[in-house]
């Protein structure tokens, strides 16, 4: 087979080596526009897993690589000047220059032809090749020429970075956070041989502009960064190799081949440097592509095999890399974190390491985290034996929740005339006896008109209060869990059938009742058009919330939550999608939040100081032109100012045709933003099913409480 490889980076060279080894009869040529000894950048990092793959793929080059590389197992994080070190993270790195030299040597030894200073711009030159491999980097010419089939997407991140070397040899993967008058700077540094380290400096675009860095040339940039990190460099120098500020480009392609042309490495995909190197991915690509030719004789099948094998792996890696890059862009919001929690948050930023995994890698670090977390939660002294974050206490107002797990059994069977059936009561008792710290009821209507379905429980009157009091009493007698009630008015989502067959299915007209909302817009196409609330309705609903809160106190609930989410009545005021009012309750965010805040204040004044008030609100409407997380932060801050002690984050369902983002732990990212930017305690659900997810989210300060899926507590191993 005649194989032409464009680009003599590590990916291109390594593919040449592997294919020549697979069949020495292959005629392989590599074309590179730069001289053989030109290279940009400094060291490249490999994980243990990648090293294993390199060992299996070509033992000879593996030996050469491991001869010169640097190896370490620690990550060190400087936050507020304090270094925190975590061990058990095996890394290795090699000088990019040495890697290229040894791969070139290996190519020559095997009989792969290398052509340097050979510019390729005419694709016709390869018309007689059986296979053309475009390993021509992030600005790939071949990718743009074949764009109609490959369908690439390229976008720049909103931050700048510059890649230096330094003669300071670090002994860990080191992250240094530096606050300046212009904003936060971050350095990522790691050793790659006995003399040198890579030193990447990064900042957000706005910080970069404020600091006037767009005005600096190469030397001035270097001096600026040396001065900035003078403390850590301790007299050592930064080294430039055409080191200039760049934006990181996210590259992905729907297809990685067109006919006999295949893309590999940065040409096909990039992944942010904060979780690993592009070189690692490129060399893994080369192995997968070669394996395609082990399995298949014809080029098309081999290339399809390569895509099937490699694309899903790279996509997962890119998702994690994006999470990591986003973390660094938002990290300024964690400035107030204690160093140990800050470090745990950083280590778990991409979702690839969690609490359980870190407990194995670095038990001492996790012990310190547990110990700090428990002391911080209790306000007591640090103990060496402490529970994991999931089992730390949480003070809310004057109450203490025994641990960080919340359960809310889903609405089923419901209530008769507003009072929960015995079956529903037993579900709540079972949840309260499960070991969770807090049990929240599903929506309890403040009035008959505020019910979602005819089976909705209520707290409208004395009779309801008495009915609930019996259940609350049983829970308090049997369980340690606190019991909270969620007060709701269904608004335009009211008067629907029980949800066994579906949600938002309107009741027949003879069973139905008139609906209220911020504006006269039906929730679903076949739904009832609600009445736009006038001043009298507004006064009435506020009074109903006050009465319901009074009844909640009388029933003995430990916490009251108001529902401002999921498109129900109070939520309909918050979102511009559902609030088209022209009075003082519509228009600006300040106006849209006015009525919900009036209700919050009213309920707050009714509640005994001992009973904390929580609010459930959307972290995003998940809809174009709706509220996003920025608005959610403002709303949460306003709620906290009005005496709300806990924000329960959910998202979507503002309108029926939203664009939700479902998956595991799908709300944790939103809770994290609201908690860190608005500075409020949060509760988050969102399909959390494991203790590891709870420990990770709570320990890292992404949320204070987690709502676990009740279904996750069912089942288990069969014990005969």
């Amino acid at each position, binding site marked *: 087979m005649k194989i032409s490889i464009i680009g003599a980076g590590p990916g291109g060279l390594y593919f040449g080596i592997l294919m020549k080894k697979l069949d020495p009869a292959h005629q392989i040529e590599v074309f590179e526009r730069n001289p053989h000894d030109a290279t940009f950048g400094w060291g490249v990092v490999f994980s243990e897993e990648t090293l294993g793959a390199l060992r299996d793929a070509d033992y000879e080059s593996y030996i050469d690589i491991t001869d010169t590389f640097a190896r370490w197992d620690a990550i060190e994080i400087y936050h507020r000047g304090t270094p925190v070190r975590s061990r058990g993270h095996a890394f290795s790195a090699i000088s990019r220059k040495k890697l290229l030299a040894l791969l070139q040597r290996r190519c020559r030894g095997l009989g792969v032809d290398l052509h340097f200073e050979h510019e390729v711009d005419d694709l016709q030159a390869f018309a007689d090749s059986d296979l053309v491999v475009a390993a021509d980097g992030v600005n790939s010419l071949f990718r743009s020429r074949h764009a109609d089939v490959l369908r690439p997407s390229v976008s720049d991140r909103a931050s700048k970075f510059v890649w230096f070397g330094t003669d300071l040899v670090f002994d860990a993967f080191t992250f240094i956070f530096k606050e300046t008058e212009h904003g936060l700077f971050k350095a990522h540094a790691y050793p790659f041989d006995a003399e040198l380290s890579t030193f990447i400096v990064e900042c957000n675009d706005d910080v970069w502009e404020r600091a006037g860095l767009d005005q600096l040339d190469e030397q001035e940039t270097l001096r600026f960064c040396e001065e900035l990190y003078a403390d850590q460099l301790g007299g050592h120098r930064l080294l430039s190799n055409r080191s200039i500020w760049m934006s990181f480009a996210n590259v992905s392609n729907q297809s990685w081949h067109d006919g006999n042309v295949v893309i590999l490495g940065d040409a096909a995909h990039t992944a942010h440097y904060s979780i690993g190197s592009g070189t690692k991915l490129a060399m893994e690509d080369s192995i997968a592509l070669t394996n395609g030719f082990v399995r298949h004789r014809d080029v098309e099948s081999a290339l*399809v095999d390569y895509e099937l094998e490699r694309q899903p792996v790279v996509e997962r890696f890119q998702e994690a890399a994006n999470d990591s890059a986003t973390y660094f862009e938002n990290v300024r919001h964690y400035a107030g974190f204690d160093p140990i929690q800050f470090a745990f948050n950083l280590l778990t930023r991409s979702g690839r390491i969690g609490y359980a995994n870190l407990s194995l890698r670095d038990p001492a670090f996790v012990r310190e985290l547990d110990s700090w977390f428990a002391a911080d939660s209790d306000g007591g002294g640090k103990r060496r034996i402490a529970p994991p974050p999931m089992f730390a206490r949480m003070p809310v107002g004057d109450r203490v929740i025994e641990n960080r797990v919340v359960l809310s059994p889903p609405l089923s069977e419901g209530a008769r005339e507003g009072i929960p059936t015995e079956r529903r009561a037993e579900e709540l008792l079972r949840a309260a006896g499960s070991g969770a710290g807090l049990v929240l009821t599903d929506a309890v209507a403040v009035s008959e008109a505020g019910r979602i379905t005819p089976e909705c429980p209520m707290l409208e009157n004395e009779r309801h209060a008495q009915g609930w009091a019996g259940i609350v009493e049983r829970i308090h007698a049997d369980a340690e869990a606190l019991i909270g009630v969620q007060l709701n008015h269904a608004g335009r989502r009211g008067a629907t059938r029980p949800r066994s067959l579906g949600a938002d299915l309107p009741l027949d007209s003879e069973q139905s009742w008139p609906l209220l909302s911020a504006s006269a817009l039906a929730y679903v196409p076949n739904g009832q058009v609600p009445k736009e609330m006038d001043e009298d309705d507004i006064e009435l609903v506020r009074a109903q919330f006050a009465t319901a809160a009074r009844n909640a106190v009388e029933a003995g609930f430990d916490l009251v939550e108001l529902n401002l989410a999921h498109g129900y009545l109070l939520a309909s005021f918050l979102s511009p999608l559902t609030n088209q009012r022209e009075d003082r309750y519509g228009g600006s965010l300040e106006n849209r939040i006015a009525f919900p805040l009036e209700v919050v204040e009213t309920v707050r004044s009714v509640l005994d100081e001992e009973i904390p008030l929580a609010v459930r609100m959307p972290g995003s409407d998940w809809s174009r032109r709706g509220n996003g997380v920025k608005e959610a932060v403002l709303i949460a801050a306003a709620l906290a100012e009005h005496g709300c002690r806990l924000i329960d984050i959910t998202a979507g*369902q503002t309108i029926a045709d939203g664009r939700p983002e479902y998956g595991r732990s799908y709300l944790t990212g939103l809770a994290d933003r609201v908690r860190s930017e608005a500075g409020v305690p949060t509760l988050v659900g969102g399909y959390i099913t494991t203790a590891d997810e709870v420990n990770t989210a709570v320990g890292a300060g992404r949320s204070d409480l987690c709502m676990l899926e009740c279904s996750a507590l069912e089942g288990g191993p069969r014990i005969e």
Partner: protein
Amino acid sequence: MNVGVGLPTTTPGADRELLLEWARRAEDGPFSTLAVLDRVAYDSYEPFTALSAAAAVTEKTRLATMVAIGPLRTSGMLAKLAGSLAALCGNRLTLGLAVGARVDDFEAAGTQTRGRGHRLSEQLAFLRSDWEGSPIGPAAADRKGLELLVGGGAGAAFARMARYADGYAHGGGPPRAFARAAAAARAAWSDMGRPGEPRLWGQGYFALGDEERGGDYLRDYYAFTGPFAEKIAAANLTSARAIKDFIRGYEDEGCDELILLPTVSDIGQLDRLAEVLASR
């Protein structure tokens, strides 16, 4: 997990004899369900018509659209077709619906692709509530008992599924792809406050013998996806072992019903698949 089989309504050369014989033998075999695909601008049979024929020669096997493109039809006609089929088969129908991906099908049917997501939501709302009070029969159809599935990978599809359906119809792929979709489906279900859990259906293509023909068919059927067609063809399950691994993988991820779709119009394919399942 149940394992069902596709009726070969889209594979080249499928005729009356093959379809009826296939349905009869599937009834005797280890298959829980007979399922069909939906395309208009293709050499294929209309799904409700094909399942009606299958209904006439079977008694117990479940019949399913996996999936039918809802918005190709008006809500009323969709209810009429599904209701008639449900009544004819003794209410053994599972109606899987999705928005569809092929513009040529909508053009051939003379309908608009624009707004099809919204139209599917309207259809589901109709099937789940308004149908009951409408004059659209037959009365022998169990409208409340009609099992509804919704397919699609976008967040809006998961929300639609959780709001109106009984379960999720996955579009195919390796078990790990199914696992991600299953987590999203369960998350959406819980978010919508539905009791219990959604039913999860999966699917995959197979060819036991004649794999070249199977591959050619898949490349042709999915030609509209461009380079993706080759990947679908490469993922065709062409050995007993591949099928068993696939079944195990789906079972491990909590799939309730897995449909294996034929890619070759040959009754021998069904017999060989039955043998593989028997030796599982």
